[in-house]
């Protein structure tokens, strides 16, 4: 085969392909297929086919695709995947990929710069932020997206009413100080219920998780003993109890073990129709967790919201506020070099804060209060 022959066949096929790319005509398609089949029969044609296929792939996307990648928290994953999917439908040129690898992984990956944005159930601490600044040379911004909450769930045979829990009771149970169901601390909050004289069996999450973080963050706010002995983290050294893997592991364990108590994510409890108790908040009223009471907790905390949104809203003030709630955050670098990516991310954030917030209830996530949305709208301007 001579060089000239080779070029001839190549240009010929690519011309056909580009024509095909412009007018998708079935007649032409058939012609081209036949031509390609003919090409395959001789070695010279094979190279031409390969070139043609490559040309076709290159010609295919008519408009530029912006692809963003993110990684992190698993708790908001169902919400995020719905948002990213809907956003892609409304804006076909933007595609957002999200991997729910866990909050710790999200923080690590955004710090290493392997993803465009991270996501976490707990805010980054000062040390992590300093490390981010040092490695990436800019700030990391926290954007609350939705709210989550933890609820105490239990299995006490013969009791169908929702039990009331005081903060002292919850701390006592998880510290291993309260060991019986009819302990005065539990009984006095439930005067109408006759609690049994059985041993409490505590169930907690076995793996490190944002759900645990919120739960122990609450306990350490209401109990100095907890704060000093155990502390706050996504995984802690539990004084008592069995570990169940995931929300399903904890709730499965509780279903099977009479007289057990544990905590699960509110979304999980709602979707699986679990029985869960009410918790006494700062102003002294027993509140059952629900989308409204969780949003109320965020609204209560909104007044003292710092500019970087790194705030814990457990034990929030307000009569209607449910005390064991938390934001979940997107972590976005303040400087994004690639202008198209920056625009796509900023546009998505604006969309998420407006129409995106309307989708939260369908998936049992509590939506952000208005004050927080307004504040985030301003914070978006910091992305450059």
């Amino acid at each position, binding site marked *: 085969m001579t060089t000239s022959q080779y070029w001839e066949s190549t240009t010929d096929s690519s011309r056909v392909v580009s024509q095909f790319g412009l007018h998708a005509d079935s007649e032409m398609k058939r012609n081209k297929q036949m031509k390609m089949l003919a090409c395959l029969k001789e070695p010279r044609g094979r190279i031409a086919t390969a070139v043609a296929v490559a040309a076709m792939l290159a010609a295919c996307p008519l408009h530029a695709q912006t692809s963003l990648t993110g990684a992190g928290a698993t708790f908001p994953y169902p919400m995020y995947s719905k948002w990213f999917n809907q956003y892609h439908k409304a804006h076909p040129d933007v595609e957002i990929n999200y991997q729910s*690898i866990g909050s710790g992984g999200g923080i*690590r990956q955004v710090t290493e710069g392997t993803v465009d944005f991270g996501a976490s159930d707990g805010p980054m601490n000062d040390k992590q932020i300093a490390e981010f600044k040092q490695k990436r040379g800019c700030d990391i911004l926290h954007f609350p997206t939705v709210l989550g909450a933890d609820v105490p769930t239990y299995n006490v045979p013969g009791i169908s009413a929702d039990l009331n829990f005081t903060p002292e009771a919850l701390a006592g149970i998880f510290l291993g100080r309260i060991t019986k169901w009819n302990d005065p601390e539990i009984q006095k909050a439930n005067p109408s219920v006759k609690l049994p004289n059985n041993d409490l069996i505590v169930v907690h999450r076995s*793996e*490190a998780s944002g759900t645990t973080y919120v739960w122990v963050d609450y306990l350490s706010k209401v109990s100095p003993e907890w704060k000093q002995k155990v*502390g706050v983290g996504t995984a802690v*050294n539990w004084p008592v*109890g069995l570990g169940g893997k995931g929300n399903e592991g904890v709730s499965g*364990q509780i279903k*099977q*073990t009479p007289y057990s108590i544990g905590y699960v994510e509110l979304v999980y409890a709602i979707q699986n129709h679990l029985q869960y108790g009410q918790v006494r908040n700062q102003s002294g009223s027993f509140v059952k967790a629900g989308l409204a009471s969780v949003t109320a907790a965020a609204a209560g905390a909104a007044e003292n919201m710092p500019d970087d949104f790194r705030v814990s809203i457990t034990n929030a003030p307000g009569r209607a506020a449910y005390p064991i709630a938390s934001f979940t955050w997107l972590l976005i670098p303040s400087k994004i070099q690639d202008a198209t990516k920056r625009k796509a991310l900023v546009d998505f954030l604006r969309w998420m804060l407006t129409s995106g917030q309307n989708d939260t209830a369908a998936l049992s996530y509590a939506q952000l209060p208005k004050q927080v949305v307004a504040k985030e709208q301003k914070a978006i301007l910091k992305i450059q």
Partner: protein
Amino acid sequence: MSTTATLDQGVAPPGGRVVSFRRRLRAGDEVAYLITLIAAGTIFLITALVFYEVFSQSALSRHKFGWSFLITSVWDPVAGTFGALPFIYGTVVTSILGLLVAVPEGIGSAIFLSEMAPPRLSNACTFLIELLAAVPSVIYGLLGIFILVPILERHVVPPLKSAFGWLPIFQGPFYGVSLFSAGIVLSIMIVPFIVSVSREVLLAVPRDQREASLALGASQWQTTWRVVVPNASSGIVGSIFLALARALGETMAVTMVIGNTPQIKASLLAPGDSIASVIANQFTEATGDLYLSALIELGLVLFGVTFVLNGLARILIIATSRKGAHS
């Protein structure tokens, strides 16, 4: 026979096409040697690389805790104190428990399938066993927590406690999830490995051996136990090692039934934790270099535990097989 003869004749005269054929054959030898060498070398390389990575990435934790990492029991990510002993204990106990149940069960069924069962039944059973080996471990974990644990709770543990309750290993309350449950789930998971490999090696024992033994007046069982099984023993031992390795490294199924409580209790009915399960549980959310490093060091410890247990098992087998040879 005739083909061998012609080949031999063809090789004999030097020169011509035969020599070039031999050369190519020789070249084929070289090629085969190289390819297999690369394959074997890759395995060595992967092991060395894994070891190196785990060793170097755990430096922070190794320097901070030294050997005390292996003998302390507090695992507190908040305070940054890490000790691996409860995890080592859980891994070793559940694996040994799994082997204790799975080895007699696995070798027994392998002997039945290869020596006694009609071939058709044997083949059908083998197919089922291989199917069991392919079930993902998360399925075993789910079956464990939703089906096996309630059965243990109702029908197995109460009689065990009433019969052997005086033994410390069967004392204390039983919450369902425990070292015992994890050991039983592991035994179910590793039986297929033992059965499938052992059956193959038993079947590979030459027919002459069995016939010779039977001709000398040995019964079928004597032949199986004194001739066939010793002949296949190295393969059976291999299957047990494979099963042990699987048990030591099993993550998902164990974490779902073990209770994930890092503590050391004499009772098998108490919840515990294992190395593989704590790594899987905490790695994704681990923040902080020391915490990560400690988790990676647990991987290094698992390497060591596997090494030691394998060595001990080997010594045990050599010792017992020598005794068998003398008697």
